[in-house]
């Protein structure tokens, strides 16, 4: 009897709010990472770029929790500062690709006809290039650093957002409530931007969250290739790049720490994104 009652209580009743553990853990992890990035100058034990040839490749110790790298820099401090570029880049890309994608998607979905057809072909063209390739081309044209890849990847990711927005808006457009607004005398632009867009935005937003993980991994990859954030600045991708030579000598920690940081953040963001889009689903939340 008692077991049965306990079982009933722990079951998730549909419609009752409450996120599961993996979601909560992911949210806490992201919050910690963000806090770490913001307060890095205060909480980091060392200057991330302080070279110390006296203590090269040290293992974890009380003075250096995660050890030191080939130049004797404190890995923990570098990881904390590295979180700044590692998180800021994807954030900028997600925000700007979402804004761009939503605008184009609403335009295509609401207007339909030739506007839709032209935009659809345009998206196909962008889709046909891997986003990393576009980012590398941007670096080739505008030089190394974070700015060019961020802009390039915002453009590369916009079609994903636009295509989702387009299909949502196109189906929303035929709903009776839109016809009701028209009959009341509202203009098409008002209905599209003030009423339909807010209705589809949560779904698009949840999907965009998923992009954050991909972008983070790709930007880290770009820095790893030496095309993104430049040494000696601390960045997770650049840190892995610099640590390559050490791997041969059996010094795994300088590469492993930033790599694990990338994995943790990507997994956490994906769990949150999946959960959000599952919850919001294809339905308009009310």
């Amino acid at each position, binding site marked *: 009897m008692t077991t049965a009652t306990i079982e009933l209580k722990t079951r998730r009743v549909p419609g009752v709010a409450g996120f599961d553990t993996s979601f909560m853990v992911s949210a806490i992890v992201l919050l910690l990472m963000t806090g770490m990035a913001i307060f890095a100058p205060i909480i980091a034990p060392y200057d991330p770029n302080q070279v110390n040839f006296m203590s090269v490749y040290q293992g974890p110790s009380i003075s250096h929790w995660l050890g030191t790298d080939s130049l004797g820099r404190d890995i923990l401090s570098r990881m904390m500062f590295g979180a700044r570029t590692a998180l800021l880049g994807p954030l900028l890309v997600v925000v700007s690709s979402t804004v761009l994608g939503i605008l184009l998607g609403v335009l295509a979905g609401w207007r339909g006809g030739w506007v839709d057809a032209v935009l659809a072909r345009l998206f196909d063209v962008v889709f046909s290039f891997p986003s990393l390739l576009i980012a590398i081309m941007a670096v080739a044209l505008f030089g190394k650093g974070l700015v060019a890849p961020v802009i390039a990847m915002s453009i590369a990711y916009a079609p994903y957002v636009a295509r989702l927005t387009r299909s949502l808006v196109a189906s929303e457009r035929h709903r009776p409530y839109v016809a*009701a*607004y028209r009959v*009341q*005398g*509202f203009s098409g632009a008002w209905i599209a931007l003030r*009423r339909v867009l807010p*209705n589809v935005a949560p779904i698009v937003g949840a999907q965009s969250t998923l992009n954050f993980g991909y972008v983070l991994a790709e930007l880290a990859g770009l820095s790893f290739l030496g095309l993104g954030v430049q040494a000696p600045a601390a960045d997770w991708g650049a840190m892995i790049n610099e640590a390559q030579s050490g791997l041969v000598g059996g010094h795994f920690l300088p590469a492993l720490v930033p790599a694990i940081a990338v994995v943790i953040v990507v997994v956490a963001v994906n769990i949150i994104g999946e959960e959000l889009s599952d919850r919001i689903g294809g339905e308009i939340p009310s």
Partner: protein
Amino acid sequence: MNLLEITELTLDLPNGVRLLDGISLTVAAGETVGLVGESGSGKSLTARSVLGLLPERSTAGGKVLLDGTDVITTSPSELLALRRHSASMVFQDPRAGINPMRTIGDHLTETLRLCEHLPADQAKERAIEMMASVRLPRPEAHLRQYPHEFSGGMLQRVMIAGALSSSPKLLICDEPTTALDVTTQAEIISVLTEQRKSRGMGMLFITHDLNLAASLCDRVYVMSAGRVVEQGSAREVFSDPQADYTKKLVAATPTILVGDAEAAVPAELVPLAPAEPEDASGALVVRSLSKSYAIRGKTPVRAVSEVSLEIPRGGALGIVGESGSGKSTLARLIVGLESADAGEIVIAGKERTAPPRKRQERLAHARSVQMVFQDPYLSLDPRITAGKSIEDALRLHSKLTSTASRAKVIELLDQVGLTEKHADARPRKLSGGQRQRVAIARALAIEPDLLVMDEATSALDVSVQAQVLEVVADIRRERGLTVLFITHDLAVVRRVCEETVVMKQGEIVEHGKTLELLTQPRHDYTRHLIESVPRPAWDLDEAIEEAS
């Protein structure tokens, strides 16, 4: 022994909600038993429990004896045997219950081969026989056809044939004709009655339509909120209801039968015929309006052709027709959602044929005509509260301050029988009837010359429908509003409109005073439509007696 014997059936959800509360009912062989009630009364749940189709994680109590076996406690394999041989079910939406990728033949022979282990050729023969028995026109050819080639009515016959192929002793019909037109409904019902008679089956028929239950059933059970509130012979229950709920339901159900000295609407509602000379033009004048839709590779479909009609100021005109008759297209043309190919629309003396383009045109058109849509669940923006949606409309059309418009919103809500507290509710929190009231208030906020109601009550339960129709009648009395009422339901038209137009395939086939049209239809189609409306079996008996 009875074929089906349900005693004290209860159904509980783990969160403590009791869905069914002590249901007892019986069905004997050869008997048609009706289960009537409004949405959420538990009638479908009761019927589904007979086949062991219970909601997930629910716990059932009591007994459901089907052919002597208790469905609730029996093993899964015995339950399968019961479903295969003792009882089968016909559902509301035939299209949802059939695999669109497979042929009708596949659908019908599959059961036979699986349950009766018939070889392919025999199964095919039986399938053809079954289709002939439900009066499908070309059984041989149908075998190779796909569901999308069938109309709703034909597909429902296929589903009935499929349900009957296992020769069940009990046939459960869950609103099998609700999605269909009246004339199609009449055909399906006659097929069902014929099969029940020839096979001596018991039939459990679930419906929300009291007239249909009265025309078909020997005995009925009336359900409300998970309980049986009344039972008895159909005639007793409907002509002399005992329970309060049944009384309300019977009173709310519109009928097309015209009683003694009864007018279509209370006398005070009938407008004082052509009022003043200046109004002679009428609130709505439609002259030879046409609209066709081009379908790629096919000849264009004429949705509306050469339609002319007129409503005097303060009048109410009903447009009746089955699906595909063009009545909704006509409504969309009038409110400016579609553009006409030819003809003209004049509302309150102003030309309103073309859909509005510029801001001034849009606003002027909106003040001429407003519309209440069919489905209140879809016609309100899910994110916007009731009050806000009315306020939006108000502030677009007037220069009211926010406090003044708020006061006006509450006044409008009050007019449709809602209160201030409904203003802050999102549509999700409102019931179907409340939503439709909000939609009406929103339309009235603009103070239009004409209100178009496109099947505005067909998605609602009868008692709610009656309330909404009452609201419309009140507003007409108070404001002298002109109403164009579009519906498939003749009985509703009779309650609301003094004049009625019958449409078929985009054309008006008959036009006249509602009462005259119902009592002395001139066109064959109108007559067919009226005859198809279900009416209590005893009324027919009396009519036959009188005739002889």
